[in-house]
């Protein structure tokens, strides 16, 4: 059986994936290897990794690119014509990108000596959501900025086939609307959307009606059109224009400047609109497919607040499965799966229970020898506990003692979230935990909450969630009996100091509870990640609390660590107290003055 290699790239978050039959062999984003965040370049290093996992080039039967480059250029050119003469400045850049890079890509893949497939962008996303899901039959919803022409797609997955049913077309796009609000709030498009979601609970959605009256015509069936007079993306390198600023009543926020109540309210309004539109689209998808299961992908599917709302409000939905790499990186995986199942007719195994994503632990892993080499090369003092049990006990004890732990173990995660193997973990009960980690490790805005990771069979004790959430893609409220009241004081009347709200313990697990009592829940089970499950269980044994903080192992602006040297560097450069890397442990307190003096010396461009 031959392997299919999937490729995404030349826009943002390029990636490669390897699939054989129904089995996902490997998948990784280029940024992890190149150390350039959201690296858009051809994923040469990720491809090398996937080829090695597949057994070399001779094992490859086909390469699949996640987009029909011909139709993408059709849209780019028609946009340039339709919006002329405003596109005069951007056209040469578009030509370079499209004619110089994208149209050259298939020939580059053909040089590898196997068949080349182009899979439509939204079909790639749909495939990434449906094929690894546990369902034999599901409605599929894809929502992102833009594919070739589609910005939202409803499809129907049955066994090993996907049928695309309907779409909303460029320039009308919920993803672009999301990005426009993100841009207006001074956050970075294509990565800041996640921060905007975290900002929303501080505000009130008072701009919703204004947006519905002017920016977006939303229909009951979830279809929509934007009023493009308010947007800049068709003719410039800006998402919004002066008309948008006038409508919002405030200019675009300068990045990194103070967040005022206006921008918090805009964030809340954006979130409310996203919630409503996705709910309507999902309902429409379930209705026209007649299915009771829903699969989601596309960048908007990373909005775990909205996903949580779907769970609460779609009574007709029995199951939901969201591709963990829902953004463009996941298109590499979907393109490969679509070739395997559709072109090669490989059967699926959908038992209605377990997915085929393997916990999204699809990236590289490193041997103890490779890890030890990295520790020695950096001059870090470390030791190796006698066995796994002792290792786990030492780490759990360190967490109880309030230490911040960098955990590096096994295969790296595929997708934007760290799920335990490249994670920074800590005790969530510490009242100042959120600020502490943000300032000492992440060097980022401290208003963003951390995610909790909880033993799967205990999730309902702590969160209003009745199912697993292994990929941190569902937001649920902290149980009412665990909450503490929050004094908002004069927050909306002149004193919009987020820290005053943030520093109040909002529950018995303050570090993972957002100001609206929500949390981005990740569940851990012994089947998907036994080692991480064992650590969490040990922490529970010591404390009676089966919950930890889980945040990605990196500092702001840096891709999540990939290889041991990345983890060691991040350990040295930040306030991580303990590096638990493979079978080794390195305590910061044990390090030489020379090593400790290196903390904070490396900085990255802010994202």
């Amino acid at each position, binding site marked *: 059986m031959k392997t299919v290699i999937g490729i995404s790239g030349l826009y943002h978050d390029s990636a490669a994936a390897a699939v054989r039959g129904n089995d996902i062999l490997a998948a990784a984003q280029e940024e992890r290897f190149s150390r350039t965040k959201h690296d858009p370049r051809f994923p040469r290093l990720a491809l090398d990794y996937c080829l090695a996992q597949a057994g070399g080039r001779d094992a490859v039967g086909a390469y699949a690119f996640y987009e029909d480059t011909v139709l993408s250029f059709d849209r780019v*050119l028609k946009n340039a014509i339709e919006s002329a003469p405003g596109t005069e400045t951007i056209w040469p850049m578009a030509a370079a990108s*499209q004619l110089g890079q994208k149209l050259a890509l298939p*020939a580059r893949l053909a040089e590898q000596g196997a068949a080349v497939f182009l899979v439509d962008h939204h079909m790639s996303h749909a495939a990434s959501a449906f094929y690894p899901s546990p369902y034999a039959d599901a409605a599929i919803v894809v929502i992102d900025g833009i594919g070739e022409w589609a910005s939202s797609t409803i499809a129907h997955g049955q066994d090993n086939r996907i049928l695309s049913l309907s779409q909303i077309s460029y320039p009308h796009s919920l993803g672009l609307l999301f990005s426009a609000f993100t841009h207006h709030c001074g956050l970075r498009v294509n990565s800041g959307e996640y921060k905007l979601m975290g900002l929303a609970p501080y505000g009130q959605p008072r701009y919703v009606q204004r947006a519905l009256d002017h920016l977006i015509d939303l229909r009951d069936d979830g279809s929509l059109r934007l009023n493009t007079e308010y947007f800049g993306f068709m003719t410039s390198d800006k998402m919004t224009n002066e008309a948008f600023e006038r409508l919002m009543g405030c200019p675009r926020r300068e990045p990194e400047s103070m967040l005022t109540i206006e921008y918090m309210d805009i964030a809340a309004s954006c979130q409310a609109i996203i919630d409503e539109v996705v709910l309507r689209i999902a309902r429409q998808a379930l209705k026209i497919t007649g299915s009771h299961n829903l699969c989601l992908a596309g960048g908007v599917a990373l909005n775990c607040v909205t996903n949580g709302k779907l769970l609460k409000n779609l009574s007709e939905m029995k199951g939901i499965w969201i591709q963990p790499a829902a953004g463009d990186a996941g298109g590499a995986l979907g393109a490969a799966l679509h070739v395997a199942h559709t072109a090669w007719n490989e059967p699926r195994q959908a038992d209605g229970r377990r997915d085929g994503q393997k916990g999204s632990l699809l990236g590289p892993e490193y041997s103890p020898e490779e890890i030890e080499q990295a520790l020695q090369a950096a001059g870090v003092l470390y030791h190796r506990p006698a066995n796994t049990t002792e290792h786990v006990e030492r780490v759990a004890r360190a967490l109880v003692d309030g230490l911040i732990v960098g955990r590096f173990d096994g295969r790296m995660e595929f997708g934007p979230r760290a799920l335990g193997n490249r994670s920074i973990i800590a005790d969530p009960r510490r009242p100042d935990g959120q600020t502490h980690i943000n300032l000492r490790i992440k060097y980022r805005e401290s208003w963003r909450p951390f995610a909790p990771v909880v033993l799967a069979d205990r999730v309902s004790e702590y969160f209003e969630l009745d199912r697993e959430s292994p990929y941190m893609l569902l937001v649920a409220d902290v149980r009412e009996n665990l909450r503490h009241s929050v004094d908002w004081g004069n927050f909306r009347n002149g004193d919009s100091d987020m820290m005053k709200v943030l520093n109040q313990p909002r529950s018995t697990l303050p570090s993972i509870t957002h100001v609206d009592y929500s949390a981005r829940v990740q569940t851990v089970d012994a089947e998907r990640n036994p080692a991480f499950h064992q650590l969490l269980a040990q922490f529970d044994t010591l404390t009676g609390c089966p919950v930890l903080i889980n945040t990605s192992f990196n500092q702001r602006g840096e891709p999540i660590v990939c290889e041991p040297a990345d983890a060691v560097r991040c350990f040295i450069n930040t306030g991580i107290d303990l590096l638990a890397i493979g079978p080794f442990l390195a305590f910061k307190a044990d390090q030489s003055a020379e090593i400790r003096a290196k903390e904070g010396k490396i900085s990255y461009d802010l994202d």
Partner: protein
Amino acid sequence: MTSTDGAARFYADYLLPLKRSNDRRDVHYFSAGPDRTKDSYWESPTSRSSGIRVLDRDGCKGTALLDQLGAYWTERNQSQLTKLLPALEEIRKALSGNGSAGEDSPAPLTDFVYPLH
């Protein structure tokens, strides 16, 4: 002449005249705003191939891909666009010849210019 010059010249010599012609004939490639006469904005999927297309080795070349685009336009009676193909091929050749936009170079665009990617 650089490839950027070529693209700029294409814009002036071909793209703007076509835009003016389209305006005169009321030809539009997409709608710019809401349409109260429509009950729904859901449309049939835009695809050349039900979502997946295999290319033979020659079909992977840039020239062949532009030819495929021409065929797509012809099928849709967008013959005005097919007249752009020779000039687009010239730009493509210039871009692939001078290596200014090789696949391994960082993208020259800001990362949120959706219509360009």
